[in-house]
């Protein structure tokens, strides 16, 4: 019995159990960013996290990546406790993570060259990825010579090129225009479907979350937010991202999730407005 159960849990690509993260506030108290988070992502699944701003989405991703230690609770990846960085994951940060002293090409090929791939090979692979994100002609630029959206796309290519088992993405497409965004979404889906990766995806766009995911997780209002709902998206794949918004299943799911989310979001705002309530 026991071994079977263990084998079962060990299949999760990312597993957060009862994770709470608190930060000290300037006032000397503790601020609970997230509280008692349980999140299980099987390999091959595409999970989106949505929630009001400041609810702790990035914090969860940081814990999954092993960059932040939960104050309590456990983080596992493929059955192994995550200590130090999660070597099986790649993480696209919300902030700008490009190395300013490397050209776009060197930034993108960084993961490969560090893994020991010969330079020429890494570069040609990087060019392939730059083409995918539409930056082929900007390979020799330095990051400060790019526009905001271009930097984001470079970061995406940088995270994707290493071909990890888990993709952690924090609002990757928010700085892109609609069309470019769709192209990137398609690329992401293709990448994911080809290889059976697990994807944890943060977005503010519920449409995007539903269109792409197998599961949408909703985070409650902070402080001390926790998972308030989880919705299985059973729209059959492959999905046509252009027309999916007219799909009745999509519309129904959207209404349902949006109803729940709205409550949380307005709660956040009310908490912020209320006189008390800084610390949970």
């Amino acid at each position, binding site marked *: 019995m026991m071994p079977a159960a263990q084998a079962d849990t060990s299949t999760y690509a990312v597993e957060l159990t009862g994770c709470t993260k608190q930060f000290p506030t300037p006032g000397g108290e503790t601020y609970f960013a997230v509280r008692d988070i349980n999140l299980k992502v099987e390999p091959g699944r595409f999970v989106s996290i949505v929630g009001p701003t400041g609810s702790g989405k990035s914090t969860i991703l940081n814990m999954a990546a092993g960059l932040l230690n939960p104050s309590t609770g456990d983080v596992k990846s493929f059955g192994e406790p995550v200590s130090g960085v999660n070597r099986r994951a790649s993480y696209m940060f919300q902030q700008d993570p490009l190395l300013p002293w490397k*050209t776009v090409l060197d930034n993108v090929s960084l993961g490969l060259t560090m893994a020991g791939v010969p330079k020429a090979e890494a570069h040609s692979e990087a060019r392939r990825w730059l083409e995918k994100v539409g930056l082929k002609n900007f390979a020799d630029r330095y990051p400060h010579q790019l526009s905001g959206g271009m930097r984001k796309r470079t970061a995406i290519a*940088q995270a994707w090129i290493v071909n990890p088992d888990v993709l952690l993405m924090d609002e990757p497409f928010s700085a892109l225009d609609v069309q470019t965004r769709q192209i990137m979404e398609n690329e992401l889906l293709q990448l994911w479907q080809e290889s059976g990766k697990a994807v944890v995806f943060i977005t503010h766009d519920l449409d995007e979350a539903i269109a792409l995911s197998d599961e949408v997780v909703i985070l409650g209002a902070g402080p001390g937010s926790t998972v308030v709902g989880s919705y299985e998206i059973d729209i059959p794949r492959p999905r046509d991202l252009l027309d999916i918004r007219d799909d009745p299943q999509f519309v129904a799911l959207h209404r349902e999730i949006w109803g729940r989310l709205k409550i949380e979001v307005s709660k956040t705002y009310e908490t912020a407005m209320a006189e008390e309530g800084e610390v949970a």
Partner: protein
Amino acid sequence: MTLVGSKKNGLPAALDGGTRRRARRTEMSPLAMRSTQLLLTLAVLGAWELSVRAGIVDEFFFPLPSDIFQTVWAWVSSGFVFPHLWITMQEAILAFLVGAAAGLLLGFVLARVRFLERLLDPFLQMFNALPRVVLAPIFLLWFGLGIWSKVAFGFTLVFFIVFFNTLEGVKSVDRVLVDNARMLGASEKQLLRHVFIPSALTWIFSSLHISVGFAITGAVVGEYLGASAGVGYAIAQAQGVFDTKGVFAGMFILMIVVLIIDLLVNRLERHLLRWRPVQSS
């Protein structure tokens, strides 16, 4: 609408406009800059010369610039100064290289291993405050009268400057960059190479700019305290016989050498930091 602006497809005109505007807003050409510097130098030297001749400044302490140059010329033309210069340069360059290398190494290690930093920081601070001149006998004891005692002298100056700056430079690296590199699979060594060193490079160069001067100072002071050759020795001897001209001539030659070295360091810096946005205003 200006004439230039109305030439819709006038690429040369547009370029022209851009250049003109840039030139107006900022930079002097390197040549003009050099001339200004030369003028400034000449003005200062001229004022000096005049005030000595007028007796306002005492020639005993501040010889005539023209006399200094004559001495420099005599030293150079007779070849007298070159063996001395060669020895001083050897010492300074060795002190600079060894000191910078050790400072970099320890700086990186201590920045990465916080335990070591906390442990060793007070000791390093203490040693940095030791007056090197007092230690001269010990340096002579350990390193002999040759160039190595002077190298050690310069080392103790260069090392601390480079060390403290490297330490701080590495510690102030943007965390997101480090995290990102680690997520991409960087080992500690790769982190160093791809993130810490490039990021700390402005810091390191700042310390190198400072320590070029200190390396030479160290070598000269070392010679000054005991040697049989080197510019410091030549200066010490001149000073011993009240030959102020000789003292200034020696210092002048040092200055020129530093200028040349600094030019090289600047060039290297510009090359290694070419990724930085061009600063304007």
